[in-house]
């Protein structure tokens, strides 16, 4: 099967993720955008595993994708906890307001 479809999808997802991380103000949406980028990478890993090593019993790409899904879950857990604390402290989840680490 042609890899174009999955690769285009991955590129689109990644770009959407980058856009979301840079442009969205809501911290929850920023986290979701990060998830988009991670999943774009997952698609790439699976795609290239099948493109470059078809039939290889050692499915390295898929394995990495699984790990990333696990790590992403943990990351989202931590990230949502931060967001939750942020909301409790200042009643807002706007990332533009979280600029205490500045000059």
């Amino acid at each position, binding site marked *: 099967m042609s890899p174009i479809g999955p690769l285009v999808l991955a590129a689109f997802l990644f770009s959407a993720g980058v856009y979301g991380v*840079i442009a969205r103000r809501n911290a929850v949406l920023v986290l979701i955008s990060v998830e988009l980028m991670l999943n774009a990478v997952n698609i790439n890993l699976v795609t290239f595993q099948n493109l470059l090593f078809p039939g290889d019993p050692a499915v390295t790409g898929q394995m990495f994708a699984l790990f990333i899904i696990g790590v992403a879950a943990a990351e989202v857990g931590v990230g949502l906890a931060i967001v939750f604390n942020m909301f409790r402290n200042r009643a807002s989840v706007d990332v533009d307001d979280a600029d205490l680490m500045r*000059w």
Partner: protein
Amino acid sequence: MDALLEYAWVVVALPLLSAVLITAVGKQLPGKGSEIGIAALGISWLLAIGIAWETFVNSPIEPLERAVDWSPLGGGFVFELGILVDGLTAVMLLLVTTVSFMVHIYSREYMKGEPRYTYFFAMLGLFTFSMLLLVVANNLLQAVIGWELVGLCSYLLIGFYWEGKSNQDAANKAFLTTKFGDVGLIVGVIVLSAGMFGLTDTPFNIIEINEAAFAGQLSTTTIVLGMLLIFLGCISKSGQMPLHVWLPDAMAGPTPVSALIHAATMVTAGIFLLARLFPVVAQSQAVMATIAIVGVITLFFGGLLALVQDDLKKILAYSTISQLGYMVAAIGVGGYAASIFHLFTHGFFKALLFLGAGSLIHAVHSNNISDMGGMARAMPHTFWTFIVGSLALAGFPLTAGFFSKEEVLAAGDIWAGAGFFTGSLVFWVGLAASFVTTFYMARAVFLIFAGESRSHHPPHESGKLMVGPLMLLAVLSIASGYLLTPMSPEAPNFETWLATPILDEEATFPFTGDGATEASPGTVTGDGVLAGAASPAPLAAAGEDGAVSILHGVPYWNLTKLAMVLVLFFSALFLAWRFYGKGLPERDPTLQMGGFSRALVNKYGFDDAGYRYIVVPVRDKLSAAATYSSNVLIDGVVAGVGRATKHAAVATYRVVDQQVIDGGIHGAAFSAAWWSEKLKRIQSGDVQKYAGVLVAGTILLVLAFAAAR
């Protein structure tokens, strides 16, 4: 046989050790340090006797030289520190340690109760060390060091009673006068050694200098200039006219010091050095003539001064000057052995006379012979030892002074026989001066011992510690003369003792006198005095060409001249007895001779002239000029340099420090602040902005890598 000679350095080191130990722990000891000094000198003395015996019985010996390289002088030249032991050294070691040992023992009683008793013994040790250092020196620099140390100790001991202003003045006078000659000595040593450059690595080595001079490797200029300058040092140190003025004043020191320093040892340093360098001296007729003439003037005029003195120590001081004149004159007329022989015997009998004088002064509490009189009964031991010393000094036959003085006169006679004018001068003036010597010693002896006592204190004999040294020295004052008499064997005798490989019996002077050239070869006769040198036949060792030999051989009796000397002796004795035999005359005849007496009392005006033409100008003109040059010229330069430095410093502060350095530092700080103000805006705290930049950067990098491929 060299075994003992190797330990000559111990003789030198022990007195130094004694001085150090006495200084360190002397005050805590029961004898206040005197026992250390006496023990150290006793060991030194025994060792010196051993060394003297070894060198004497085996004479002539090969000199023993041991040296360490002390320090390189640069240019491949080396300063050695070492010992040179030959007959001359052994003679001096024996003389110095004997007199010093006797003086140590004597002082234990004489100085009892004096302030600074411990200090006195430490100084005696230091002085003895200095003199021995000079005596054993194998190079001239070491000799100069010893020479200067001797001068220093002399200064300290003359000024021993420093509470008195006159004693301080005497010490200063002695130090400055001898220092004047020391400058000559140092320059002379440099001149001599400069002539040795290129010949050897050790230009100060005495043996090498002597050998080079004898082999004719030194230029005449070097020899004449060097030896005349060194002789200037001898003039001041050995009390020759006109620099003798310090010696009578040096009697301000304690009497044992006068015996040790100003009679027996220190003042002989100059003569010792001339003898040590005799092979160099002998190269130049001009130098020898100068030495002889200075010696003749001193021996005669110095002796005359003793005639009018009332202070016993001053009488002895002037007689020392006169006897030193004999020694110097002997060097000047080729009497190498005669000079040292006279030095040797004179050391003993003059130490005896000074210690005897100390004993008398101790008894009557006065230095003046007009306060004595009739002392023979009260002080029998002092009396007979003093008589022995006086007879030896006056040259009464069969005493040590007789043999040595006649040896000097014989040297003059031989020199005259070889056709040198100075020889007859030394002979006849020396003979006349011996008349003077006899007269002033007879005057002193009659006034001290004969007649009634004029003392305010009842005199008493001194204790054992003072009389013992007197007796030993009295024995030596007779016995030491028998080392070289007409009865002596060919070898060993005093002359072979002093012989060195250079000055052996074949050595001759490189020049000849008028008489020798005119006479037929080999007929230079030394028609000796009573104990004239050489055989009555033509001079045994005279060369075929009429050259005069340096060593004269054993003397012989010459009854004509013996009779002459005896007549002079007894006529002087008779004259003195006529004047002084019945006690102190109302009017002392030596003071009744008009202008002559006035000249003597004024010491020929040397002291006044020295004060008026040297001390006063130096004090009023030179000191003022020096003060001016110091305060105005040198201080001006110093202050100017200071001011210039200050201005330079201020200018540097203003420009370099304030503007360049501070500007740089401030500029750096300001630019950092300015840039940080601009750059801090980057850290906005807006995480999304950071992410945007991150993405943009990544894209740029990817594009750049892509383009690079």
